[in-house]
Each structure stands twice: as structure tokens, then as C-alpha cells.
């Protein structure tokens, strides 16, 4: 392995998470981790703390490290937090007269639950007094029925700013996705009077039919603006002061970077950026390993996140809902369930055992932490059964109390059922595995994929204890535990490109071949806009990739299927071809005979995704030097194996001796510094040249 770190260029990925700020710092081909607590009063402090840790590991000063950094990529929860905690800018809203209550209707707040106590009203993102209704109307065809009343707009604008003291505006007019003239005119008026006021136009952030999502997206973009821009500017300033020489990129939930300038304009793009980093990292890893289809798993203290990669393409969830807030934001599709190391085991009213979603979090934490927690958690169960070595938890940073774990399980969980503590712990283990397997099922089976064709790539501090059991439930025979599992999201950021996505509603019935030129002109304008933005970011045409796709439906349907389009103008012959492709895709998805008959196919929305490719640092490899299990073996531990319902002597292997090419058969435990891996019976664990562990069922092991 090359170790001339002192002379190489550096690349830094930073993931600002809810608890920890993680850094992956690559100098030359040498990677070091940095971890610090996230600092909510000024996020940049935590970032620099974590960078400092990584710099020290590289035996560099922060100034030296940043001075040789070519690219600094940052993922952040700041936007997600602003929305979940409802702390944002004071937003003023300018809306078509007659429709100001649309925001409260929120597309209907009733959720599909029986219990009436769960039926609540949507959160207010702005003060109701900060809405101005303006006379104007554009109809379904994009024609102006009533002109914009500019005098009224101006009066309302002054009231919003001077009396309501709004910090940002959203302009929301009906049918503006078809004809943005009135939103543009409003923008000019606002600009003329208040040049520094932040303004979001609904058609600019989501030019798609459906006023609820489009308007909500505009309001949210203005809502998160203050906090996001304060964060972006502080980080930029502090990093530059600290000597950052290279580029600074912010990571979007869509799974790619954007520049500081664009992030300031469209801060909502940073929503969901943390989990997206992990998905990008998994995809890069999968490509290196020659894996085309992968399911993603990340388990933390309170939740388990999972997503899917098909043909090395990450699934993007369109129009994300944040509880009752319906947006037009597209982000990497991640399903999150309340299952983590801190999830609490409890007994429901039916007398049936349950685990999560309530969590002991970090305070008081699992009973084994000895910080006053008395409820049994997942971590307690794994300590109790011997999977986690109390002396080596989190690299030995603090010692766990196995006796407290056992007591919590016994008192609060096992005894009511007449079980031993170990049996109770095994039940917790089984339920957690089922909960996580259900979530993985949701992103795969429920979207029409067979998990047996996938590898399960599992990271995060706790998941490697459960990964193979989850895989077994879904019929998956290969699990990959990546190297540097605990900072995998930060590492993933280094594999990212610049990405922009434009969506536009065109509502083209494919039998109207006469409209093809109109559709082509819209598509051409979108491609040019995207290209222009990428060139402005400094990309050459040669490094810009354009992918076109479209949403299709039968005229009258409300759901659509997305299919690829060629990267060129459409010709008349394309119309029947696309119609046939859609018909076939529909029957593939929903079953033969289900496609609608006698109804024309419609191309509803055009999408242009443009990628600015940049060089990615590649991690170094370690040559194969297989060692025998005896050479790697560290100790033997007595572990309660839930699948065998018995205590068993299990060999423990040392991560640092586990050279590439070595393999061991389960049951086995591999103790790494930042995670513990469990290899169940009838499973083989192998290490590859990237230092990843690959777990396969023995029948398939070669």
C-alpha cells in the first residue's frame, strides 16, 4: 500500500449527522477517519473538529490538510432538521386570489389509520397573516384570463416586509407551470423594491401540475433559506479561513453535488443529503466489486435506513412527503424504520413482544451503558447474548455493563413470558431482524424486484451483527460489509458528481404527433438550461452527461411510470414506439391484461438529469495474502445463538490480522475497531482487496 500521504492531494468528505460529524479524509491513497460531536450552535465548529481529528491521523496540521485539498464535499442534516423541528425563516406568501387556504388543506391531512387521535392538522410553515392574495389568473391551457394586478401586489408586498417582517417570500400562482409570466412579473416587482429579499417562484422549483406540491415546495425552499444559508456561508468562511484551497461542494438528497451559489438559491435541494451519501458510496463500491443490483442498509442508534440500486442506478423517490407536508423534491429513495441499537423492547397491550420505534437514544442509552437506563434495548440483547464484547465496544472507548443489560431484559421483558434472559434477548434479536427485513422488502419486493438477485451492502456501527440474518429472511445469499463501515456516508460523498435535475409537465398525448415539435422545443430548452448551469460550474461539455426520461400514464390515470427517452429530438416514429414501450412496461409491472385499453398514452412530465463528471479519488488496494483461520483467531467467546436457541463457543477473529483473501466459516465473530461482524452458521466470510468483508452462504461459497 502506498503511504506517501504527506505528498498527495487530499479529498475530504464530511457528513454532518444528527449526533456525529464524520470525516473521510483521503490523502494520496491513504484514508483516515475523523469523528466529532455535531455542534448545533455553529455546525462549522464540529466540522473543523472532525477535520482536525483526521488531519492528526494523517500527521498533518489542519492548514496543511486543507491546503492540499482539491475537493471538499459536505453532506448536512441542516435542511432536514429545519423542517422536522419547524424552525425556519419567516416566510411571506403571495398567492392567486381565492386560494390562500390551499396550504392549510395540504392536499388533505387524513392518514390511513383507524385511530382518530392520529388525525391531526398539518403544521403551519408560516403565519397566516403573512399571506397576500393577488388578482391574476392563468387557465388550464396557459392562457391569461385575468392580468396580474401589480398595484395590489406592490401594496401587499410592502405590508409583508414592513409589517409582517418576513425574511423570505414564496410566489405561488395557479397554472404557473404552464405559463410563468405572472410569477416572473411578480419577481421583477419584488426585486425592484427589495433587491436583497430571498424569493422562491413556484414554477422555478417545481414546474409540475398540482398546486399543493408546487406551492408547498416553494414555501419550503424559502422556509429553510435562512438556516441553510447561514450554515453554508459560515462553513465556507471558516474553511477558507482555515486554508481550504480547493473546491467546496454541497451534497444534495438527489445524490450529487452542487456549488455554494446554487445551494444558496435552492437550499431545499440539501434535504435528505446524509442518507444519499451512503447510497452513492454503495454504488461506487458495487461497481468496483462488479455488483449490479444492491440493497442498502444503514443502522444507527435510533433508525434503520434502506434503499435500492438496480443496474448500478440508485432509485430516486419522486415527490417526497414529509409527514403531512407534500413536496415536489426528488431524493434518493430511503425507507427509514425506528429500529436501532437503542430501540426499546416492550410488551404491548395484547401481551405480544415488540421492539421500537421508541429509543433510549444516547441519554440514558441502553441499560448496559450504566447511565441509568433500565429498559431493555437491542444493544442490551446483543451484549447479553455475547455478540458485543463489553470491553471492546466502540473501540474500547467505554466499557459496557453486561449485568445491567441482563437485568433489564430479565425484569422488563423475559420474566413476563417465563423466558430466560437469553431467550428474551433472542426474541429481541428476531423481532429486530424482522423489522429491518420488512423495510428492505418494502424497497425491493413492493417495487417489483426480487431480492434474491441482489447483494445486501450493510454499514453503520451495529448492522454487521444482523446483516446476514436479514439477508437470509429475504433469500439474499451475499452480504458486503464495507471497509470503514462507520463513516461510510462521508466516504460516499467523495464518489459523487455534480447533478441537476429538471422536471416539467408537458401532458402530451402520444396520438398527437403534430405536437412533437413543441415537445422537442421544451426539451431542448431544458437541456440547454441544464448544460448552461453545468458550464457555469466550470464543467467542459465533454464532462457533461445528459439523461432524459419521462413519466407516462394512460390518459386519466393518476400514477405514472418513468421510462428513459433518447438524448435527441423525438421523431414522429418515436410516438408509437414510446406508447408500445409504456404499454409493455405497464403490463410487466402490474400483470398481463391490466393495461388500459382504448385510452391514449400520455407523456406527462419530461425530466432532464444532467451530470457534471469529475475525477473521483480511488481507495488503495491491499494485495491478497490469505491467512488461515488459526492465524487470524483472537479468542473464543460463548455466545447465545438465536437460530440454534443455545449457547455456543464461537471463535472471535481479529480485524487487523484478517488479510485479503482469508476466509472463515461461521459461526464466527469479527471484531473490528468501529464495528462487530457476526458470521452465522453455514456462512463464509472472505476479505477482498478493498478490505471489505463478503459474507456468503456456504452452499454458494467458492
Amino acid at each position, binding site marked *: 500500500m502506498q503511504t506517501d500521504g504527506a505528498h498527495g492531494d487530499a479529498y475530504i468528505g464530511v457528513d454532518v449527522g444528527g449526533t456525529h460529524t464524520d470525516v473521510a479524509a483521503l490523502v494520496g491513497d491513504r484514508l483516515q477517519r475523523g469523528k466529532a460531536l455535531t455542534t448545533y450552535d455553529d455546525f462549522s465548529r464540529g466540522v473543523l473538529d472532525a477535520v482536525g481529528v483526521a488531519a492528526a491521523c494523517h500527521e498533518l496540521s489542519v492548514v496543511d490538510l486543507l491546503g492540499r485539498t482539491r475537493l471538499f464535499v459536505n453532506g448536512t442534516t441542516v435542511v432536514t432538521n429545519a423542517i422536522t423541528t419547524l424552525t425556519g425563516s419567516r416566510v411571506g406568501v403571495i398567492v392567486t*386570489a381565492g386560494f390562500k387556504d390551499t396550504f392549510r388543506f395540504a*392536499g388533505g391531512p387524513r392518514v*390511513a389509520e*383507524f385511530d*382518530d387521535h392520529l388525525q391531526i*392538522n398539518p403544521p403551519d410553515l408560516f403565519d*397566516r397573516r403573512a399571506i397576500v392574495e393577488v388578482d391574476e389568473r392563468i387557465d388550464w391551457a396557459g392562457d391569461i384570463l385575468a392580468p396580474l394586478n401589480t398595484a395590489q401586489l406592490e401594496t401587499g408586498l410592502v405590508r409583508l416586509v414592513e409589517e409582517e417582517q418576513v425574511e423570505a417570500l414564496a410566489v405561488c400562482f395557479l397554472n404557473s407551470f404552464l405559463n410563468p409570466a405572472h410569477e416572473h412579473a411578480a419577481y421583477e416587482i419584488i426585486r425592484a423594491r427589495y433587491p436583497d429579499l430571498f424569493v422562491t417562484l413556484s414554477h422555478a422549483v417545481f414546474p409540475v401540475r398540482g398546486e399543493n406540491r408546487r406551492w408547498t415546495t416553494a414555501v419550503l425552499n424559502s422556509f429553510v433559506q435562512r438556516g441553510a444559508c447561514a450554515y453554508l456561508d459560515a462553513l465556507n468562511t471558516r474553511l477558507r479561513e482555515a486554508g481550504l484551497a480547493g473546491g467546496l461542494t454541497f451534497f444534495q438528497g438527489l445524490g450529487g453535488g452542487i456549488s455554494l451559489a446554487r445551494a444558496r438559491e435552492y437550499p431545499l435541494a440539501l434535504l435528505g443529503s446524509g442518507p444519499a451519501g451512503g447510497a452513492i458510496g454503495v454504488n461506487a463500491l458495487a461497481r468496483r466489486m462488479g455488483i449490479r443490483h444492491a440493497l442498502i442498509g444503514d443502522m444507527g442508534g435510533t433508525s434503520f435506513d434502506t434503499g435500492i440500486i438496480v443496474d448500478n442506478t440508485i432509485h430516486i423517490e419522486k415527490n417526497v412527503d414529509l409527514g403531512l407536508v407534500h413536496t415536489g423534491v426528488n431524493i434518493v429513495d430511503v425507507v427509514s424504520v425506528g429500529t436501532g441499537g437503542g430501540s426499546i423492547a416492550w410488551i404491548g397491550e395484547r401481551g405480544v413482544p415488540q421492539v421500537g420505534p421508541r429509543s433510549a437514544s444516547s441519554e440514558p442509552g441502553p441499560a448496559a451503558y450504566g447511565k441509568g437506563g433500565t429498559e431493555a434495548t437491542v444493544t442490551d440483547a446483543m451484549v447479553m447474548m455475547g455478540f458485543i464484547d463489553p470491553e471492546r465496544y466502540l473501540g474500547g472507548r467505554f466499557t459496557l455493563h453486561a449485568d445491567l443489560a441482563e437485568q433489564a431484559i430479565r425484569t422488563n421483558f423475559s420474566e413476563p413470558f417465563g423466558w430466560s434472559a437469553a431467550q428474551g434477548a433472542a426474541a429481541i434479536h428476531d423481532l429486530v431482524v424482522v423489522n429491518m427485513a420488512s423495510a428492505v422488502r418494502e424497497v425491493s*419486493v413492493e417495487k417489483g424486484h426480487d431480492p434474491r438477485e441482489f447483494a445486501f451492502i450493510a454499514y453503520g456501527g451495529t448492522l454487521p451483527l444482523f446483516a446476514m440474518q436479514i439477508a437470509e429472511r429475504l433469500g439474499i445469499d451475499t452480504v458486503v460489509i464495507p471497509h470503514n463501515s462507520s463513516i461510510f456516508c462521508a466516504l460516499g460523498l467523495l464518489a459523487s458528481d455534480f447533478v441537476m435535475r429538471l422536471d416539467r409537465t408537458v401532458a402530451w398525448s402520444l396520438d398527437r404527433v403534430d405536437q412533437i415539435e413543441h415537445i422537442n422545443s421544451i426539451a431542448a430548452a431544458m437541456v440547454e438550461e441544464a448544460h448552461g448551469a453545468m458550464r457555469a460550474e466550470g464543467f467542459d461539455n465533454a464532462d457533461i452527461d445528459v439523461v432524459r426520461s419521462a413519466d407516462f400514464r394512460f390518459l386519466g390515470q393518476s400514477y405514472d411510470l418513468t421510462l428513459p427517452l433518447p438524448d435527441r429530438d423525438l421523431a414522429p416514429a418515436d410516438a408509437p414506439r414510446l406508447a408500445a414501450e409504456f404499454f409493455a412496461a405497464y403490463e410487466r409491472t402490474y*400483470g398481463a391484461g391490466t393495461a388500459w385499453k382504448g385510452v391514449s398514452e400520455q407523456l406527462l412530465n419530461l425530466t432532464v438529469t444532467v451530470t457534471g463528471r469529475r475525477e473521483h479519488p480511488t481507495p488503495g488496494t491491499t494485495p491478497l495474502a490469505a491467512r488461515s483461520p488459526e492465524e487470524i483467531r483472537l479468542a473464543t467467546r460463548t455466545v447465545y445463538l438465536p437460530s440454534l436457541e443455545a449457547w455456543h463457543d464461537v471463535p472471535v477473529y481479529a480485524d487487523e490480522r484478517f488479510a485479503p483473501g482469508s476466509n472463515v466459516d461461521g459461526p464466527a465473530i469479527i471484531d473490528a475497531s468501529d464495528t462487530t461482524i457476526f458470521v452465522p452458521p453455514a456462512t463464509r466470510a472472505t476479505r477482498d482487496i478493498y478490505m471489505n468483508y463478503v459474507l456468503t452462504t456456504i452452499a454458494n461459497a467458492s
Partner: protein
Amino acid sequence: MNDPGYDIIGAEIHRKAIHNLTNEMAIALRRTSGSPVVVEAMDFSTCLLDTEPEHLGFAAYVLFHLGTSLLGTRLIADMVAADGGPRPGDGWIVNDPHEGGAAHQGDVAVIMPMFHRDQHLGWGFVNMHVLDVGGAGLSGIAPGAHDVYAEGLRFPAVRMIRNGAIEHEWEKFISANVRTPGPVLNDIRSMIAANNVGNRKLSEIVERFGVARYLEFSAINKNITEQVLRERIASLPDGVYEAAEWNEWDGHDGPDSLLELRLQMTVAGSSLNFTYSGAPQIDGFVNAGKGAMWGQTVTALLTALAYGDLPVNGGLWRPLTIELGSPGTIVNPTPPAPVSDGHSEVGMRACKLTRDVLSQALALSDDPVLRSRVAAKAHDGTPVSALYGGNQHGSTSVVLYLDSPTGIGGGAQSVHDGQDIYGATCMTGCGLSDLETHEAADPVLFLWRKMVPNSGGPGQFRGGQSLEQAFALAYVDTMGGPAWNSCAEVPPSGFGGGFPGSGSTYYLIREPNLRELLAGGEAPLSERLNGRHELTRNKVGHMTLNRDDVLVFVSGGGGGLGDPLLREPAQVVGDLSAGWITPGHARAAYGVVLDASGLLDYAATQACRAAMLERRIGNMPRRPLSAPESVGVAVDLAADGKCWCCGSCHETLAAGNANWRDEVPMTDTPITTRFAELEMNVRAREEDPAVMMREYYCPACAAALAVDVVVAGTETLPAPRLARAGVPALASAG
């Protein structure tokens, strides 16, 4: 609690798998159906039943299908049992409220047996509201029909699916009888697809567990649900609880009648009996068949009692009995009674009756969790039109917007205000369509969409608020069809001293100045729009809209919970500044007064509230008004059962075996008069009898004890008759 003697973890894993199965059926249906009725309003259901048949899983959308699926599947199971059993790939279509247990003809079910290999393991049930089933109405609802034969196609349980596909002859038959054959047949295909997905999933699950364990766990999970529900019921005091409602019917050119129906709920140990009675059946579409009655009863039960750790399955039915009285009434109709809106006319009234008697019983439970489940009635009405005609695209449109039925308010809860835009109680998950979607598809221009001020019933917790929307027929010369509305004159009452929510209505504005306003750059808002206002009857067999005519739908709100004078003035001021209520309403309902600068005038508010309390009972109250220990428990029974007392000040009101309503101060006012003071909507009746608001107050502290909405001349509504209070017939039975 002890080791239950079976694999409890396995049973729980089985339960989650079944839950996923019904959800995947729902996902398949939503994705394949194009109907906004399914995708936005979520007017559909999917469930799995075993061979009993009892439910194993039910996706929470239209709750009354818990009743219709049981009745429809039982019917088919009995039929095939006599005919050699079911065959894979067979399927039945059911939509007949008289013979098939359906809720209304527009709700079409596809019921298919589910197999693993060759073994019959149960039934899939998928139901959705299709766009049309022919007949005098549209979308299967026919206010103009005088008998069931005019209402459209009836399928009592017809096997028209073979080998997983609908038979071609039946396709031709349906095509010939409905107005929108394409979408209707596509919807049936979608329902078959959803059943297929369900069967595939079921096979996977059985494969994993093995048949024996699968069956064992099915039985266990039903038993556990039964047990939890029984425990909850056992915490309700034994006795008889009674409530009354009135169904509105002004169709067929009148008379404008109010049809009484009542419910007696008997709690005996861990069982609940619901016994309905009602006026004789009529020749209008309001009569509710068994599916609607069972379904709407269990709907109210689910929203009140299926909270927390209580999965819904067949165990839920076991503690319940539902009796509909002698045939020939609006609650137990026989052919040829029309029934096409029974689910949302008499059916929704049944839902409100059930909510009422449950709240009465919950309020008297010793268990604080159950007491917290008291709630006001939701609005539960359906203001809607179904217009048919050409559109701007040269094709045809059915303007059946479920926006206004979705735009009704929920009942106030003990933990928060009622939900706005809650939809009917039976329609969980319902959404409000974007008007941009409507305008792109249909020849309409929306003029406004706003929250109706003062629509939520006043209370310590306010009822949910409702939607007003208006659209003009802007792009074609004419469209026509029926229109109906079920809750205009008898709005939903509150509970525990909470006030009723507002009523729903709709009206037309003929030949409006729409074009002049637009040309002049003015949005055509209600305050600017002039034209000939036309208030039609509530149930209209056919109305015609001409170019530019405007149709305005005003939905109604949910009832309030607890005395409105207990609502914090700051909350009332918040509602005022948000524009949810008017200053006049704040003063009349809540006694809250603002000063000139729009801030709370504390002194004036105190004085106003004191004057209101004095006016309630005709003299100065002896005790200050205070909040009851449990929200909405305005009247309580003393621990020894000997007397009723005020939930706020504990003043003794009456003997425990007497009707406390007979013993306390009461005002009896026409609801139109009261609602005019409160600046709330209720549709005025032009014929007798009047609808009255009866307000009962504590003689000592003047707290509102109950606000009943009744038809003039109705006897005082009864108090619960409890075994604990020594009501003779019950004391021995309990």
C-alpha cells in the same frame, strides 16, 4: 402474564406479513387504477379473509368495507360450499346492498378465493367506487330513483371472472349498461390485479411458515385481538346507552322530511350489542342495507376503540352483535326500496349514533385511557354533484369531485381540535385533489377554495373545519346530472357540552358576471360575483349547468368537545387572527372580546363570559366554571352509582337511575336562531318540524353539560341506564 404456550414471536411475524399483504394489494390497486376516486379520495379497500370466513387483515381506507367484505364473502362461501367449493381463478362481482351485503351499488367488489398450491386458504376482497354502474344517477348514486330497479346494475354475487380474467360476455354486458365502460372495466381489471398480488404474497407467506403453522398463527392472532377488544369493552360500565339522529330527505319534490333513527347499545360484560330502529323505508335512495349499517357501526367503533396495540382482524367482530329490527325500515330496507346512497345517508347517521353511544359509555369508564377516547361527532355528510357531458378536449367528462365530501370536518378529540378536511369517518387516508388536475381534465374553472369560517363546532376543543369551493362551467355549453347532500339541516352534535358543527350546503349562481370580472382584471371571488343565486333542494335527480354557471359547495364542520367557555382565550384569538373564526363568533360562542388594536381584551372577555354563564341558568352561578378532570366528561356518575353529578363542580344533578336532563336548566332554541347568533351555517327548513338545539347547564356552575340537536317535539333524550346505578332490568343482568 405467562408463557402463552405457543410461539408468540412467530405469531407476531405472521401478523406483520398479513398486514404487508393487504397493503401490497392496496398499492397494486392504487397504481393500476386511474380513478382519482381511488388515488386521491382513497375510496377503496383491500382485505384478506380466511375460509371461515373471518378477516385476517384489512388495509385502512374505507372502513365500512370491514362490514361489506364480511357479508359478501360469507355469501359466496356459503354458495360455493354447496357447489363443490371454490376453484382457482374464479372471481365474483358484488355490488348489491339488498342481496350482496354491499354498501351501495357504486361500490363494486371483486372477491376471489386464494389458494396455496391446491389448498384453499381464504378469500381476497377488493372494493372500489367505480365511475358508473348505469341507472338513473351517475356513479351508481341516483337521488331521482324511486326504486332499486332504477338505480342501475345490481350484482348480488355473480361469478363473472374465470381463470383470472373477466369473461368477455360480461365485459360486453357491462359496456352496454354503463356510461364510462372503459374506466369501469379497467377498474375491475385493477381489482383482479390486486387480488392476484395478494394471492402471490399469501403463497410466499405460507411457504415460509408451512400450512399448519400458518393456520395456527391465524387463529392465535384473531384470538388476541378479540381478547384486547373484550378487555376494553369490559372497562365500560354495563348498561344501555341510547342516541337519536334524523336523516334528511327532500327529494322527489318533497315533502322535506326528517326520518328518525335510534340506536341502543347494551354493554354486558365484554360484549356489545347494537340495536337499531328507524322510520319506515322510503322511495328515495337514503335507505341503508345491512352492509352499510354493519359497516358504518364498525367504522365508528374502529376510530374510537382500535387505537394503540389492537390489530384489526376477525377477532374484532366476535364481541359484537348488530340487530337491525324488523324489515321495512330505513335501517333494514327490503326491495324495492332504493338504497344507492344508503351508506352516506342513513349509514353515516348510524356512524354518528355509534360514536354518540360510545362516547357516552367511554365518559363513564374508570380507565383514564378509555375516558380520553370521548369525542364529538364528525360531520359525516356528502355534498357532491355528478355531472356528465363533453369537455374542452372533445371527449366526455364525469365531474364527480369528492373534494367536498373530503372537505368536511372531523369531530373534536380530547387531545386536539378536530381535523380539518377530515372526510367522512369511514374514509381514512382520503386526500384532496389539486384543482389544476381538475381543470386540465374537465371543462371547469375554479373560482375559490377556502376554509369556511366558524365551521368547526365550538368547544374546549373545536370541531374540524371545512372546505368551500366554487367552479364555473367555463369551456362547454352544458353539463348535467344529479347532486346530493346528506347533512344540511341536522348538523353533527358535539359532546360533553361542546356545540354542533356547521351544516353543508350547495347552490348555483346562474348567469354570473364571471367574464366581466376577469376582463376587468378581478378574480371572480364570492364577494364580487353577481348572478342569480339558486338554492336547489338537497337531493336533486338532475340539474343542468349552462356555460359560465357557477356551482358552490359549502362543506360542514365537526362537532366540538367540552364547554366552549373552557377554551383558552389565547387559542380563540389565534383562531381569529388566522381567520378561522369571525369576531362575532368569538364573542357569541367563546365570550372572547378583542380591543380596538385586535388584541385580547381580558377584562371585557371576563365580563362577557360571566354574563353568558349567568344567562345560561338565569342567575349568578354559585361556583366558578372549571374544567372537568377528563376533557369532555361533563357529566359523571358518582362512584357509588347513586347520583349523576357535574363533571366540573361535582354538583349533584339527579339520582343515578333517573334522567339528569330532566333535572337541570335547559334552553330549547331553533337551531337556525342559535346558529344565526353564532354566525354558523345551517340550512333553514321551510317546512315543519323545526330542528332544535337543546342546551343543558349545571345549575351550580353553569357549565355546559350537553348540547343536543333534535327535531322539535322529540322527548328528552335519555341518560345512560346503568347497572351500577341500580336500573332494575340491568342490575340483575349485569
